């Protein structure tokens, strides 16, 4: 068996190029034209607007995925708080203090041992500090938004460089503050059978992962901000080619919003505590 490819190509051409009036009547109403039409009948260079529209959609989808993760994190936080398994939401059976005292007592003090483990409660982390970090994040987002607006209005890429750099520096400040925050999360020293270790209560765990996700976002923002600065100074971003700034701004603003959401939720929980 062999198929006459020529005949097939002709058929294809017939369908593609001119259509078929008889069949046109059967086709459905053309509802999706607004989205379609990326191709331009032979050229390979798509217009920047088309590419930008596509990239914006991708950014929104990635933000959507990030929203799902945030929703999962908040669910985790509220669920753990709500169930409060065995009353251990903010406490754990263990010791305050550090493992060295355990090793010191057990290994070096003859006949020494630790007192009986007691229920240790952790203090809530500072909601005020939380809001402070959030404020810094929001400021960085505001700067980048301002920079984008200015760039689009004035078409002046050179003056965008310091603005992007400033936003990057502010994001880095937020990053450092987040690390400071993470270090404040209290651990509890636990011994079990033959082992001893530091552990987090579920309260601390939830805060840890919320702040950890903020930390990762800050790293991404710093990368993006640095990229914008370099690209603007190299002329890759210019008065005419500002689309990428908007893409970055979209993500940046989302990070700021998520940071506000997290701070709000954590504050509520802290106050009820």
């Amino acid at each position: 068996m062999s198929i006459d490819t020529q005949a097939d190509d002709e058929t294809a051409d017939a369908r593609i190029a001119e259509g078929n009036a008889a069949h046109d009547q059967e086709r459905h109403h053309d509802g999706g034209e607004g989205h379609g039409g990326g191709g331009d009948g032979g050229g390979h260079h798509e217009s920047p607007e088309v590419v930008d529209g596509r990239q914006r959609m991708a950014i929104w989808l990635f933000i959507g995925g990030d929203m799902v993760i945030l929703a999962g994190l908040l669910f985790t936080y509220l669920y753990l708080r709500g169930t409060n398994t065995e009353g251990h939401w903010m406490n754990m059976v263990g010791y305050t203090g550090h493992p060295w005292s355990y090793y010191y007592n057990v290994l070096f003090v003859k006949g020494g041992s630790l007192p009986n483990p007691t229920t240790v409660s952790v203090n809530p982390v500072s909601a005020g500090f939380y809001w402070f970090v959030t404020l810094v994040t929001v400021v960085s987002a505001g700067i980048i938004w301002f920079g984008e607006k200015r760039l689009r209005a004035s078409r002046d890429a050179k003056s965008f460089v310091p603005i992007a750099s400033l936003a990057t520096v502010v994001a880095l400040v937020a990053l450092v503050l987040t690390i400071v925050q993470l270090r404040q999360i209290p651990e509890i020293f636990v011994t079990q059978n033959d082992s001893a270790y530091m552990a987090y209560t579920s309260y601390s765990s939830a805060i840890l992962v919320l702040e950890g996700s903020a930390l990762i976002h800050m790293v991404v923002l710093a990368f993006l901000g640095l990229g914008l600065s370099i690209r603007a100074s190299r002329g890759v971003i210019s008065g005419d080619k500002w689309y990428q700034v908007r893409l970055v701004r979209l993500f940046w603003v989302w990070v700021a919003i998520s940071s506000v959401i997290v701070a709000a939720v954590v504050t509520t929980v802290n106050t009820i505590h």
Partner: protein
Amino acid sequence: MTDSDNDKTSLKSFFWLWGILTIVGVVLGLYGPSHLMPKSMSPNMHLTILTMVIFTVAAAPVAAGVYAATIYVLRNWTHKGDEPPPPAKPVRENGIIVATWVSISVLLTLFLLIWGLGALAEDNASASSNPLIVNVIAQQWVWTFQYPGTHVESNSLYLPEGREVEFHVSSDDVTHGFWIVQMGVQVDANPGVITTIHTTPNVLGTFDVRCEQFCGLNHAFMDALGDVVTPQQFSTWLAAQPQRT
């Protein structure tokens, strides 16, 4: 083979096929579950088997319809060979058929839901205000059963006939699945929480307790024996057990 485009009379064979397959399905439904499943020792298990039978009977015409249609299609409208057959008459939409299909499946689903929710309510209904409470403790890879108020702990489960039992299930280590095979009740044993489930054993005899939640190395061997005895035998057994404090 190409004479098949329209032949209304031949649809008869489709309906025959459908009918026969439905009957096969119904027969399988009536005998399959009750034959294969363990003998019932509680109202819950009875309800489970009954629901299995009813669902199978309800699903039989649906499955038979799909099979009959597929076989009918294969019998009447297939073409062999290396050359493609000519285009068939295009049918893009048939609102009536779609609407009928959707209505029937909505009705069937409604039936399943009403039956299912009713059965669920019956399953959860408590028969007695004074149930026998048994603490079920799961540990890798053994079950132990405590009878509160008596200081008795045992590794096999003795239950009196005809009295509702409420199991308070918990675990010492990881999640296990408490399952009384012949009574159709399952609930997970979770560390740190107590879950409850109740049933009323109504047949004398032995039964199996198995773990149905993957719990590590010896999961396959985590079972316990159980025995439903008369209330008198139960009190005798309880009194003969070592008292633990």
